[in-house]
């Protein structure tokens, strides 16, 4: 079963929920799909080993063959190719690697080469068997989605898979949560939390992914998130209080279930509940 943990708003506790759920269940696969800012391993502290580079294909123009006809410049919808007086210039970060330029080149002057935009790393815990795959986008690179797609090729569907998604509701989130059997939306009971939760809900509804809500720092703010969930018949799976001890453990990179073991029971119970809700029981 694939469980995605998403949120809309950043900093609501996606990684906290993903890590603590993973450690409470044990022997799961955890995918850190927040490839712009991967944080899961800060809490696991495992030794990461690089699995591979994630590459996109970019054009490589043979100057000898190119007659500057401009067909490639015109066909590129990402403005990645620009004509200079005596040559063509590629802006590699704008290139999506679609291959249109090499298709239209009448001289056969365009080949492709691979360009690395990030990495995939892996670690396995000796204690609980939790396997982490983490993607990381290189600094200055704009496109997160190819890394997320590459990460997801490592999913082992014989296991429970937890997917820590990036914040927001745009393309990287879609890449991360596509194919999930259940989506846990983490929010906080504030006006920002509620507003961004409502956007994330629109997304999971449109994608037809069964979903429920975890309210983090539940004693802050006001009742509006609770009321909203009740009115829209969205299950509230868990509430995590705004405790200084939890915040301190978080700041040190310690998953709170390790120091507050009674919480493990709550996470295991939440898992049982969402298996039922996903119709996977």
């Amino acid at each position, binding site marked *: 079963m694939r469980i995605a943990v998403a949120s*809309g*708003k*950043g*900093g*609501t506790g996606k*990684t906290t929920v993903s890590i603590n759920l993973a450690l409470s269940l044990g022997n799961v696969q955890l995918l850190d799909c*927040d490839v*712009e*800012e991967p*944080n899961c391993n*800060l*809490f696991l502290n495992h030794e990461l080993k690089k699995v591979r580079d994630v590459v996109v*294909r970019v054009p490589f123009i043979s100057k000898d063959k190119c007659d500057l006809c401009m067909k490639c410049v015109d*066909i590129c*919808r*990402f403005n990645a190719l620009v004509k200079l007086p005596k040559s063509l210039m590629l802006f590699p970060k704008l290139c*999506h*690697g*679609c*291959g*249109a330029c090499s*298709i*239209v080149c009448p001289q056969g002057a365009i080949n492709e080469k691979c360009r690395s935009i990030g990495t995939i790393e892996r670690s396995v815990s000796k204690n609980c068997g939790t396997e982490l795959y983490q993607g990381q*986008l290189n*600094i*200055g*690179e*704009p*496109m*997160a*989605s190819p890394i997320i797609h590459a990460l997801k090729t490592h999913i082992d569907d014989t296991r429970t898979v937890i997917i820590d998604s*990036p*914040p*927001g*509701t*745009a*393309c*990287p*989130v*879609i890449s991360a949560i596509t194919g999930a059997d259940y989506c846990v939306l983490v929010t906080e009971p*504030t*006006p*920002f939390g509620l*507003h*961004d939760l409502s*956007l994330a809900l*629109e*997304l999971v509804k*449109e*994608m037809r992914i069964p979903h429920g809500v975890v309210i983090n720092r539940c004693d*802050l*703010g*006001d009742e509006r998130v609770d009321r909203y969930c009740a009115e829209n018949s969205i299950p509230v799976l868990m509430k995590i209080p705004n405790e200084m001890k939890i*915040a*301190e453990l*978080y*700041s*040190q*990179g310690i998953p709170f279930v390790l120091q507050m073991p009674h919480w493990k029971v709550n996470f295991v119970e939440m898992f049982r509940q969402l298996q039922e809700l996903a119709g996977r029981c």
Partner: protein
Amino acid sequence: MPKQITVISGKGGTGKTTLTAAFASLANKVLIADCDVDAADIHLILDPISTSKLDFYGMEVASINEDKCSACGLCVERCRFAAISKELVIDAHICEGCGVCSLICPENAIIMKEHKAGEIFRSATRFGPLVHARLGIGEETGGKLVSMVRKVSSEMAIENDIDLIIIDGPPGTGCSVIASISGVDLVFIVTEPSVSGIHDLERVLEVTAHFGIKAVVCINKCNINEEKTSDIEEFCKIKGIDVVGKLPLSDIPIKAMLGSQTVIEYEDGIFSGAVGDMWRKIMACGTLMKNETKF
């Protein structure tokens, strides 16, 4: 050209929008641009009245004309983004709009269609004009929309004789962040003293360095972990980055937010005082001075 400051953080939820709104209420004459387009929240505090709206068109999306299609499957094979299913259905969320399918279709059955991906609003608030946007759910043109919000903001600032734009940026380090910070005069980074906060700060500082943009740092919730706060200060000192302020963990931002107020409007105390001090330090940054002295 108006001067521009972008507020970012790497990690989400550190207080970007709270501080952007507070700065808006402290600035004399300012335009606010909300570039966190897929979780735009600042309007919840600024209570804007929209004066005009623009449609935002993202990349075009492929569309198959079933009458012409011979179901040869070449498009499925050649699409590098796996946006076309075996049943020849195009997933508009996945389609990147590259046009390869329409280029190679032997029946000319695929055309590229204009696709509305969001809206941009020009609004008025009690602190000055606000330009904000709404990206359609699951759209992929975040960076492009951010660039358009910034373009509209610059034009509007010039029209209204405003010489400062404050940009509320998105979390992360990818396309929306790059589009939010390119060419600005100062990046203001809000972090928190946690392992995640520090990790994400280090990465966004690499991004600002990569693009050669001056950055300053604020440590929010500094009393959650005093040791990590010292670590951040030490790290910034080594990197030559100014820490322009430290704010304690407080319930003031949330209380203010519940009443749609900035922290400056909500109270006149230690917290808002610290935000005010920070604002004065930011305005004294060389890259923001109106008449930069040139020797």
